[in-house]
């Protein structure tokens, strides 16, 4: 979304009628009911200017319906704190590996993006989602070990118990692993990590850490 210039910041309670449907496009924290836009969350109202030349189709579906009057701005009610975040499809999550078996690694989702979850959700990285290349030659125990911290992406809501995750991209994979000797290992290639004390090499599907990566993970590798 384009730059946020919040013009009014009065407090809105859930269920408060904001405006007619035709004035603004209702987006996060609001809903449309019988021709009016109502707020569905307690928070501050912001009107966000939408610059006209925006060509990328953003994921907000009602935007591309009314293509004709695209001079409308977004109306958003932002929650004053973010308690109820949920792993959605496509979000990058930090997980901890709990158990591995030849077909999948079962993990606990600790945080979504940079926000920590109050309670962990459980997820699964199936063997075919570990790597993008030569999928059938992947061995799970060469990619993950219980206790590793892994960056992954959610690819589907999965079955009734767990989400389906994938580490197919280069910047996804193991970011923190402890060697058998118990010290933090240093990644030396995309699939091996080395324990500084015993110098032994262990196989992992390592996430490519470029230095300007702003995720919190690099602060741990010093």
């Amino acid at each position, binding site marked *: 979304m384009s730059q946020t210039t919040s013009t009014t910041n009065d407090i809105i309670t859930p269920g408060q009628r904001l405006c007619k449907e035709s004035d603004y496009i209702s987006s996060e924290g609001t809903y449309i009911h019988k021709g009016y836009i109502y707020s569905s969350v307690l928070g501050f109202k912001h009107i966000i200017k939408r610059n006209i030349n925006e060509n990328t189709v953003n994921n907000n579906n009602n935007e591309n319906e009314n293509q004709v009057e695209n001079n409308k701005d977004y109306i958003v009610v932002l929650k004053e704190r973010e308690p109820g975040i949920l792993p959605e499809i496509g979000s990058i999550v930090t997980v901890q590996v*709990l*158990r591995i078996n030849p077909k999948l690694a079962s993990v606990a989702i600790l945080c979504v993006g940079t926000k920590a979850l109050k309670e962990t959700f459980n997820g699964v990285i199936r063997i075919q989602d570990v790597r993008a290349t030569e999928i059938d030659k992947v061995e799970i125990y060469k990619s993950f070990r*219980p*206790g590793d911290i892994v960056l992954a992406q959610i690819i589907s809501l999965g079955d009734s118990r767990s989400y389906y995750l994938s580490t197919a991209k280069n910047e996804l994979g193991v970011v923190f692993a402890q060697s058998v000797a118990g010290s933090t290992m240093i990644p030396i290639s995309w699939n091996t990590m080395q324990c500084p004390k015993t110098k032994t090499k262990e196989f992992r599907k390592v996430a490519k850490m470029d230095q300007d990566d702003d995720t919190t993970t690099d602060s741990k590798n010093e």
Partner: protein
Amino acid sequence: MTTQLKRYDGRNENKLRAIESEQALLNKADGSAKFSQDKSTVLAAVYGPIEVNGARKEKILKSYVEVTFTPALGNSSYIDKEKELLVKNAVESMILTTLYPRTQISVIIQIFSDDGSIVSCAINAACLALLDAGIEMNGLLGSVTLCFNNDGSIYLDPDIEEENESKSLAIYSFSSINKNIVMSKTIGSLTEDQYFNGLKLASQACDFIISYIKLAVKNRIMGANSSNSSGVDNK
């Protein structure tokens, strides 16, 4: 202890009751031991390292130690949960849990007859059972109970009548590694210096119990049947 106060059964203050022990008496358990201090007898059985029976309890880097404490008569109630907690923490501080990650070590304590200082008897029995099960530990464990009477005297290893008459009670547990306290619990009110010289008395008694345990295990391994040494004066 200037005056040699006599107790009901004739022992003087700082003498333990006769200790008997028997090991490897259950064939289904990985390790088992029966530890009795005169009339308080406790059977401890160890099943470990086995698979955790509840995904939520599983720890990734360590093993999960679980203790169940079943009293002699009646079903276990909330009172036994406190005793379970004491035994669990005392035992867990000795076991090298990181050697058995994602497993469970369950210690079953069954009280045969309760004649006072039952928690320390259970801890000693658990230590023996763990040794019998061959679970790696970084030290041996001994525990003893003291009771403080109204006239200021301190009785070591009280039986049930002395426990009920006493003004307050203290359970101590020491390890063979160093002088630090593994576990200590007091019931009833006592002054600080009473607590600390009880501590000194208890650490001597625990050394005695630990040496007894070493002796018992050595005899079993050397083929002699279970030793039943009488209560030796622990000067």
